[in-house]
């Protein structure tokens, strides 16, 4: 059967045919189709199953508010669960499969749940499955979890790329229906920088789905004309296939552009989707309105859909959903569907009109004061039962039923800052209230102006108003003629009487009965109603059904709908792929790499690298024959102790501190004193946080009267710099101190071991004998004429230096050092050996500098000078922090060196019961021969 339900007309390109499959069955469609329109054109109404009762489901709508027609789009690693067929753009070769059904969507075993629906009422699970306690995890929950969810992920890595970007504009127009087009045109012609975004792949909104005329053109053609003019304006950016997902603070909007979703696969290098952050001075929400149903028994069968959608499928896509169509309406708009369908030759068997007033449609069976009370058809609609004004019921054959209970202005985004919409009695709908996102104004149906003229007029007016606030003048061109029909609606939320179930939230299977039960159990506040029944928590977030639930609850409590209140919409407007939100920050690109100056050389040596923050550092350098890291590390340690070892320590933070107050400044930020440090010398410094805990440590050298170079730990380089800026700008704003980071400017190597000096003497041009360059000396030197710096400091050995050159010479320097070191069997060592040696030398590092230790804990209490004010000095003296019984970080030698201890081990007396009361402290870090531990006395 090929497109049995395709009828004339529509905005599809019949000259081209797309082939696609659903559940393995091949079908045909055309460019311009959605998956839903193409399936309906092929007579397929059943597309999925509901969440709880596994009831058959077909499209309820023709848009992104769709709760029912959810499928797996594509297959393999690109399988996309819960994809709304109503917005999935058809492409040649598309494959889709139904979800939440086994073995098949036509016969679904779990439909058994539907038989037992009277047990599975709202919140039934809160009242049972409690005995015996252990059974929840073991028995009940596994069963529930197996049934959980709708679509599934394949667990394969998403092969597509995602991109991100930033856009800036004067005016963002959200939605390209008549109101949005009118607004964009007005602002565009005025020269404003405009972005017009619409989630659809064809701009025009409802104009593409109606037979309305604007001026003397068909609505769709008028829209196409406006889009063409906007495209010609350099100051206007058109963004079709782009959903504004959220209104965030200060005019920042999130937008998802579906760059490649209409293709089988993205072109090479191209993203599947792009997340745009749009910075707009003003924004106009022209998102239109969303039609809502009327609940009646068994109103959830495939073939029953919104009347406006039935019309849309006929007008835009040339599809007659059924051959015998009925309409159930409580408002004038429902009649349009009947008229349009009949004009297209579709057999409209009846219009069931809940209203008693108004004129009758000529030539159509138009039943006033009537309602649909039931339907039949296992997998799709077969008959509907009508209760006429006189109370008599009649069952008629129908393959499609269009239902409309009126239209809800699409206020979604106006509540993203948690403003609540307000009730409009005339519309019988919520419209935007105050307190919406600042700078966002609303136009057209989204604001409750439901006619085409109202849309055009308010779109233009709001654009003029928005630009005026930006100091721009836009002029009001005369508007083309368009329908301006008044609203005629009689409130009708659900059909009363009968014992069956009337669906409100068709995806989560929330029915009128569930709302009644919630009320009975006093879950009457809207928030309790939502949370207890799961109303509006499905993938459509209740865009169509929520208001009916509120109306039912209002009826039960005797309150009005506005008194009953409403839950609010939260971002995103429609669900967003995780990949899109992550962009390029995944895999190895999750965070950038920082490479040390000796990285290239280390790679050549076959070094094993380790992540240290964003840095990659050599952890150890395996030599041929070494099979275990311990062998390499032990060799590196022993060789360094015996002769000389070299290590790249560039990652340590370096901060250049200059100014006439530099010394006084250091006295304030360090617990110990630096103003007394002689030029050409360096000193170990201890830095506290204001709460008295140890913040950081390192050596700082005085290079000149007013010039210091501070060293920080690798981990704290950024936070220390931030802290110093805070001190100089905020705490002591008149101190003459200037700061700049030089971490990356210098390649720095530690040269440690008894032969360190001998080695350096070979390459340094100056005299660095003990007298010329004593312990803790610091100064400028040259290496073969290249400027460098030498510091005689050590964290890891007896005689040790740190030597630095401009980073570009770092690679050459390590090669020079290794070459010169050959006669001393110099080795290079990595972070692991560095750690071993610093522990054995008795220096604290990361594991001890954990932000929980005081200077006293570390045995450095005496370093905190009381003679001067310094950050953290006062609060470091609190009783709990000077407690002599507090733990101490001490070096420990195991009695039995063969005994293996891991860092993090706690100490217990031999034979003592393993409880906290007997805790003797823990091992903070370990070396191969000696450990560093926190001991409670």
């Amino acid at each position: 059967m090929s497109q049995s339900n395709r009828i004339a007309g529509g905005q599809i390109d019949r000259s081209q045919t797309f082939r696609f499959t659903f559940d393995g069955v091949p079908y045909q469609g055309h460019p311009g189709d959605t998956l839903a329109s193409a399936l309906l054109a092929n007579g397929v109404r059943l597309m999925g199953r509901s969440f709880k009762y596994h009831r058959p489901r077909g499209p309820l709508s023709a848009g992104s508010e769709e709760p029912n027609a959810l499928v797996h789009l594509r297959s393999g690693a690109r399988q996309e669960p819960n994809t709304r067929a109503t917005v999935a753009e058809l492409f040649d070769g598309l494959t889709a499969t139904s979800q939440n059904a086994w073995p098949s969507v036509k016969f679904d075993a779990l439909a058994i749940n539907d038989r037992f629906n009277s047990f599975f009422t709202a919140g039934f699970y809160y009242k049972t499955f409690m005995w015996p306690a252990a059974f929840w995890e073991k028995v009940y929950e596994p069963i529930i979890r197996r049934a959980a969810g709708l679509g599934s992920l394949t667990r394969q890595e998403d092969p597509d790329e995602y991109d991100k970007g930033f856009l800036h504009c004067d005016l963002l127009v959200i939605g390209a229906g008549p109101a949005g087009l009118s607004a964009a045109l007005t602002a565009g012609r005025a020269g404003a920088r405009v972005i017009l975004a619409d989630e659809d792949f064809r701009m025009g909104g409802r104009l593409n789905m109606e037979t309305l005329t604007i001026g003397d053109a068909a609505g769709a053609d008028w829209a196409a004309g406006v889009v063409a003019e906007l495209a010609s304006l350099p100051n206007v950016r058109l963004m079709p296939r782009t959903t504004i997902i959220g209104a965030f603070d200060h005019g920042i909007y999130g937008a998802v552009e579906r760059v490649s979703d209409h293709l089988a696969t993205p072109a090479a290098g191209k993203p599947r989707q792009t997340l745009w952050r749009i910075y707009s001075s003003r924004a106009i929400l022209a998102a239109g309105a969303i039609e809502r149903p009327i609940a009646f028994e068994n109103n959830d069968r495939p073939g029953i859909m919104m009347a406006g959608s039935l019309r849309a499928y006929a007008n835009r896509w040339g599809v007659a959903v059924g051959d015998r169509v009925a309409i159930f309406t409580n408002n004038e708009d429902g009649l349009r569907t009947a008229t349009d369908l009949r004009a297209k030759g579709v057999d409209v068997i009846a219009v069931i009109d809940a209203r008693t007033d108004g004129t009758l449609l000529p030539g159509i069976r138009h039943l006033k004061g009537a309602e649909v009370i039931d339907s039949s058809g296992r997998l799709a609609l077969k008959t509907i039962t009508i209760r006429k004004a006189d109370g008599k019921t009649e069952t008629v054959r129908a393959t499609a039923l269009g239902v409309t209970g009126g239209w809800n202005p699409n206020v979604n985004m106006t509540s993203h800052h948690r403003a609540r919409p307000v009730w409009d009695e005339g519309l019988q709908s919520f419209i935007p209230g105050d307190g919406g996102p600042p700078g966002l104004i609303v136009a057209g149906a989204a604001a409750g102006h439901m006619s085409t003229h109202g849309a055009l007029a308010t779109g233009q007016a709001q654009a003029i108003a928005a630009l005026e606030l930006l100091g721009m003048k836009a002029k009001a061109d005369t508007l083309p003629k368009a329908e301006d029909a008044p609203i005629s609606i009689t409130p009708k939320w659900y059909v009363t009487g009968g014992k069956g179930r009337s669906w409100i939230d068709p995806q989560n299977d929330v029915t009128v009965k569930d709302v009644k039960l919630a009320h009975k159990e006093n879950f009457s506040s809207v928030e309790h109603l939502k949370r207890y029944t799961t109303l509006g928590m499905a993938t459509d977030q209740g865009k169509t059904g929520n208001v009916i639930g509120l109306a039912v609850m209002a009826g039960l409590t005797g309150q009005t709908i506005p008194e009953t209140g409403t839950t609010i919409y939260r971002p995103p407007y429609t669900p967003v792929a995780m990949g899109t939100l992550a962009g390029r920050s995944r895999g190895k690109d999750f965070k950038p790499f920082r490479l040390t100056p000796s990285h290239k050389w280390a790679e050549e040596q076959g070094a094993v690298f380790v992540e240290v923050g964003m840095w990659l550092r050599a952890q150890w350098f395996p030599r041929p024959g070494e099979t275990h890291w311990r062998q390499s590390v032990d060799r590196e340690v022993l060789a360094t102790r015996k002769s000389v070892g070299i290590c790249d320590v560039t990652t340590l933070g370096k901060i250049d501190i200059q100014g006439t107050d530099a010394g006084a400044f250091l006295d304030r930020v360090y617990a110990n004193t630096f103003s007394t440090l002689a030029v050409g010398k360096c000193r170990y410094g201890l830095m506290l946080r204001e709460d008295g805990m140890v913040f950081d440590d390192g050596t700082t050298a005085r290079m000149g009267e007013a010039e210091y170079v501070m060293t920080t730990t690798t981990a704290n380089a950024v936070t220390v710099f931030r802290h110093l800026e805070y001190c100089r700008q905020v705490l002591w704003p008149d101190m003459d101190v200037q700061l700049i980071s030089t971490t990356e400017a210098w390649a720095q190597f530690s040269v440690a071991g008894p032969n360190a000096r001998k080695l350096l003497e070979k390459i340094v041009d100056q005299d660095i004998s003990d007298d010329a360059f004593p312990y803790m000396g610091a100064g400028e030197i040259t290496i073969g004429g290249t400027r460098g710096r030498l510091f005689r400091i050590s964290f890891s050995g007896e005689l040790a230096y740190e030597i630095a050159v401009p980073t570009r010479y770092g690679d050459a320097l390590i090669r020079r050092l290794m070459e010169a070191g050959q006669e001393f069997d110099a080795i290079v060592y990595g972070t692991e050996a560095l750690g071993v040696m610093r522990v054995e030398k008795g220096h604290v590092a990361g594991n001890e500098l954990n932000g929980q230790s005081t200077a006293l804990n570390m045995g450095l209490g005496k370093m905190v000078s009381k003679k001067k004010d310094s950050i953290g000095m006062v609060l470091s003296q609190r009783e709990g922090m000077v407690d002599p019984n507090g733990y101490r970080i001490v070096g420990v030698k195991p009695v039995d060196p063969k005994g293996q201890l891991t860092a993090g081990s706690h100490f217990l007396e031999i034979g003592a019961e393993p409880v906290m009361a007997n805790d003797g402290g823990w091992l903070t870090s370990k070396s191969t021969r000696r450990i560093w531990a926190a001991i409670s006395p």
Partner: protein
Amino acid sequence: MADTLHALTALGHAAPETVEIGPYRITERFDVALASIASRKGRDKDVEKAAKAENLPLPGPAAAAEGATWASFWVAPQMWIVEAPFASHEDIVSHLKPAFGDAASITEQTDAWVRFDLAAPDLVPLMERLCNVDFSKAAAGFASRVVVEHTSCYLIKRGQGEVTLYGPRSSARSLLHALETAATSLL
């Protein structure tokens, strides 16, 4: 005296690289010496005078300026980074110190940064994807700190089709990778 040390570019080669992707050209620059100049407290006037004498431009906030030998861009209140030809000014601080004396704090920055010059007929689409700057609206000579794929850079707009990007030297490869990926996505 041992012979001099040989330099390596931030990307780890003896000579700088140029990458061409469609209309986009990304050029690593290795021939520029950099230093920061921060005026000492209350010495703004002296710094201004010294700069004039050196014919070294010190532009206002968010701006870059170019002179005969010297160019510079603003990085913070009373602080600039100055650019000079590396060949003649490798020891850039020794050139600046005599001119500014104790009126300014001067620090060598040459190797703290990797410099990429981006060129294309129109860089707007690329910049939209790289950083949060209203590039098309910015005037030539606009200079700003920006973040490119988690990497903190300085951006200088030389013209609609010409941009200088200074990024942390240690992240040179990651930064280039980000630039290449963005450019490729625009082909």
